C-alpha cells in the first residue's frame, strides 16, 4: 500500500503542508518496500481545479490512502469517486516521516 501526505519540503524531515491541492510536495510512503519518495505538486499553482488535479497526480503515483488537514470540496469529490481513503490529520510538530510511519 502507498500512503501520502502533502509536505512543505521534499525530504523526510519536512513538516506537513496543511493544504492538499496547493501543497508544495507529496511525501509518499510505500509500506511494502518501506521506502519514502517525494514528488513536486505540479498542480499547486493552477488557476483553478488545483485540488482535483493534485488528486489525479497522487493517484497516478499509486497512492491508496491520503492524509491532509483539509481536503477542498472538489478534491474530496474527486478522491471519493476514485475510492481513495482520506484521513483528516493535522500536526505542525512531527516530521512527515513520523506521520506516515504512524498512520500506515
Amino acid at each position, binding site marked *: 500500500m502507498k500512503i501520502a501526505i502533502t509536505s512543505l519540503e521534499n525530504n523526510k524531515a519536512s513538516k506537513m503542508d496543511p493544504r492538499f491541492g496547493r501543497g508544495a510536495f507529496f511525501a509518499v510512503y510505500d509500506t511494502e518496500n518501506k521506502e519514502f519518495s517525494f514528488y513536486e505538486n505540479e498542480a499547486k499553482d493552477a488557476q483553478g*481545479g488545483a485540488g*482535483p488535479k493534485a488528486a489525479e497526480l497522487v493517484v*497516478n503515483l499509486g497512492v491508496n490512502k491520503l492524509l491532509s488537514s483539509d481536503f477542498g470540496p*472538489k478534491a474530496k469529490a474527486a478522491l471519493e469517486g*476514485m475510492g481513495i481513503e482520506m484521513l483528516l490529520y493535522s500536526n505542525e510538530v512531527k516530521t512527515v516521516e513520523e506521520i506516515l510511519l504512524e498512520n500506515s
Partner: protein
Amino acid sequence: MTYKIAIASGKGGTGKTTVSLNLFYTLQKQLDQKIQLVDCDVEEPNINLFTKGELHSVSDVNIKIPVIDSDKCVYCGDCASACAYNAILFVKSISHIAVLEDLCHGCGACTYVCNQPDVIVEKDKKLGEVNVYSLENGNELVEGKIEIGSAIAVPVIGKTLKSTDENALRIIDAPPGTSCPVMETIKDVDYTILVTEPTPFGLNDLKLMVETMRKMKGKFGVVINRAGLGNLAIYDYLKEEKIELLMEIPFDKNLARIYSEGKIMVDEVPAIYEKYVKLFDKVKLNLDEANSYS
C-alpha cells in the same frame, strides 16, 4: 445617440450603481430617445431594487459541457490534456475519467480533440439568465444574473450586452475589480466612467483600473465619490497622469440617506441633478470628439 457608456471601478462599493442610476434618470429627463440601463454586475445585480420595473422577458444563458461515456472511452487522455481549466479528471493508472462540471468553461476543446466516435456528447448547462424590465418612457433595464453557485460570469455578461438594443443609448453598470468580467463589460463600449473615492484603497484600485483602460485603449474619465473623505493624493495622481476629473459627489449624510431609502439623488437634490447634467456634457464632448476623428 446610440453610445455605450460603462460605469466601472477597481474598488467595490465606490458608487458605480449610484452613478449609473443617477446618470440614467438625468438623461431620461433630458433626452427624447430610448435609453437602456444595463446591469452587468451579474454576481449581484441590484439596479432593479431602485428602478422597480416590470419584468417582460427572461432568457437563459447556457454553455455546452461534455458528457463522457466511460464504457466507450479508450482512456487516451487527449481531452484532459486539451482542457485549460482542469475540468476533466483523468487518472490513467486506474482508468478513471470524470467531468468536473463546476470548472468547465464550455470551450469545446475536449469534444474537438476526441477521436473516438460517440464518447463525448455535449449537454446544456445553465450559467445564468438575462432579464429585461420595462421602465418609464419606453426605456428598459437589461439585467444579467448568474446562477447561485456558478463562478463563470463572462458568458452571462456577454449575452446581457448582446441582448441590448443597438438603437438605444446604453448606460452599463460594470462589476467591480479589473479581471475578465470587467474587461468583457468594457471591451466594446465608447466611454468608461471610473468611479472612485479619495482614500488609499480607492487610489490603489483606481491605478489598476487606469492601467487596464490604457491597455484596452478605452476612453475614460474619473468621478470622485465621497469627496471630502480621506486625503488629496488622488487629485495629485489625476493631475500627474492628465486624467480628466468628470465630477465630484460630496461625502454627505443626506445623499447616503436618499440612497438607503431606495430613492434617486437627482430627483431629490437639484444641485446633484446639475452635476450629472454637466457630467454627461463632458462625456458627450469626449465621445463627439472621438467620432469626429473617425
